[in-house]
């Protein structure tokens, strides 16, 4: 019962935030020094007067802002997200197509930084004060502060330019037809951007896991486990992982927002045709429909991450589960 109530409350809260996000984005777009008509059709449009009339009618462009928002929201809910000026295609198609590229990139980076960060954090905590621990700690502090796009540029100049191991950019070899591109091509082109993007998250997760694990290593039950004669490997397997995995996973899910932003930067360094580079293009070309679409889409993405974190915690943590079952 409490499950349902908790879930209901969370979903309600998220819906209210989602509506607010779209209102906020809409208001920001409205306040931009740009004519609403231009915002919808672009500056170099060759449309006839009648076609312009039709667009103005469809989006209520001549009405006051509140009506305009209502028109936009209604169309949006019906699946008409407008047409992108930059790509000359419906916004929804552009977003879904671009997201297909980005989602693999983000997933690869997310998994890599999560697993590697967690293992490094555990290892550092177990050998506290050793040379390895100090190296990991310093490296993570540096990576945490390093700008994603700079890391991307360094990776690019080392692995793609100097060593020539990987291609310089794009998601597929140039000059190849769309149906000739193999999965191997895709993966080959994705490695460097994914590496760049995973650097963004790895410092945080490592330092967090290390801190948590250190706290646990100092607790009485670890002392007792040692007194019983458990080896380090046993302690880590039986007590360490059980106590640190959950918070680490939650942290990883809560990082969706940074992941999305980081993807925009990494994609622009490697000219990878994902949703991040679509966002940049939309902003630079004053492509209002696409900007609005991506803003709302990204909010849904972040909410999904937060919801997953909340739900996982509720399902997997026995303490919370017991408390809510009572």
């Amino acid at each position, binding site marked *: 019962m409490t499950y349902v109530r908790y879930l209901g409350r969370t979903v309600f809260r998220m819906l209210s935030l989602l509506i607010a996000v779209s209102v906020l984005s809409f208001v920001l777009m409205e306040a931009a020094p740009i004519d609403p008509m231009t915002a919808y059709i672009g500056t170099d449009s060759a449309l006839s007067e009648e076609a312009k009339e039709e667009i103005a009618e469809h989006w209520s462009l001549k009405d006051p802002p509140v009506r305009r928002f209502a028109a936009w929201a209604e169309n949006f809910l019906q699946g008409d997200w407008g047409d992108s000026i930059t790509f000359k295609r419906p916004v929804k198609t552009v977003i879904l197509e671009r997201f297909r590229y980005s989602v693999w990139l983000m997933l690869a980076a997310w998994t890599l930084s999560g697993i590697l960060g967690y293992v490094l954090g555990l290892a550092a905590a177990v050998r506290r004060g050793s040379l390895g621990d100090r190296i990991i700690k310093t490296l993570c502090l540096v990576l945490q*502060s390093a*700008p994603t796009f*700079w890391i991307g540029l360094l990776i690019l100049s080392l692995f793609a330019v100097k060593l020539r191991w990987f291609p310089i950019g794009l998601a597929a070899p140039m000059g190849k037809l769309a149906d000739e591109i193999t999965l191997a091509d895709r993966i080959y082109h994705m490695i460097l951007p994914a590496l760049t993007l995973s650097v963004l998250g790895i410092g945080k997760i490592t330092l967090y896991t290390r801190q948590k694990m250190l706290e646990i290593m100092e607790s009485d039950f670890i002392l007792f486990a040692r007194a019983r004669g458990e080896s380090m490997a046993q302690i880590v397997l039986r007590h360490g992982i059980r106590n640190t995995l959950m918070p680490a996973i939650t942290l990883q899910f809560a990082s969706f927002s*940074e992941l999305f*932003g980081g993807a*925009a930067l990494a994609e622009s*360094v490697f000219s990878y045709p994902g949703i991040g580079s679509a*966002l940049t293009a939309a902003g630079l070309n004053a492509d209002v429909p696409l*900007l609005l679409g991506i803003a709302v889409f990204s*909010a849904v993405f972040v909410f999904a991450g937060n919801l997953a974190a909340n739900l996982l915690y509720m399902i997997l943590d026995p303490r919370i589960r017991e408390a809510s079952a009572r």
Partner: protein
Amino acid sequence: MKKTGKINTRTKTLIYIAAAVLYLSVIFIWGISMPKEAYGIEYSEKLLPPGWGHIFGTDDMGRDMLFRSVKGLSTSLIIAVLAAGISSAAALAAGVAAAVFGGRIDSFVNWCVDLCMGIPHLILLILISFMMGRGVKGVTAAVALTHWPELTRIVRSEVLQIRNSQYVKAAYKMGRSRLQAAWEHIVPHVLPVYLVGVILLFPHAIMHEAAITFLGFGLPAEEPAIGVILSESMKYISTGKWWLAFFPGFMLLAAVMLFDVIGESLKRLLNPGSGNE
């Protein structure tokens, strides 16, 4: 007390802080007082690798990368100071109000925090800078208006702890209004945490300024800014001109990390539990 010859944590922390402040103020003053000629165009010396004449090398127009980076970083610092000032003031006000008044105001502030954190930060920055018509004004506004949520949370949770203490209740009993009590008894206690929060906000502000400038929303291309420099370097990096990206980014990283060092050190010093280790 026995002298061991080793310096203690406190002294070491103070040394770190001094070094960090020195680096940042040198960059700041050097950058502001730098004449335009220092990073002027010199076609006879274009694309030189790092060497004695130009420690950081030169770019495609023969501009010295060291001077450009310093100038750019000082611009970033100014924007970051402005942004941190505005954001932190908003965070203090919102955090204290939420915790002191509670109820509706509290849930409203929390809701706003969730709203701002619900959109990826970069997208929010782009939307705001787009609204302001890009340029310097756009970046400053975007960075200033989006950095308050985390600090608000910190301030709020801190105030919540102090709110129910004896002396605050006593102040209420003596007839102090909520605002008076907040100002006289709560704010002074939150101040250390708040100050650390403000300093830790700088690195984020600098980084975000550089990021949106890099993407092309921020400072105009002719302005020397780290973001502009790095985005220009992308054109030459495929031909192996690594120094165009390496050094400017490294200076940015150093500035960001030094702010982090100052913040974390202060946190340790101000915390009575670890201040005298």
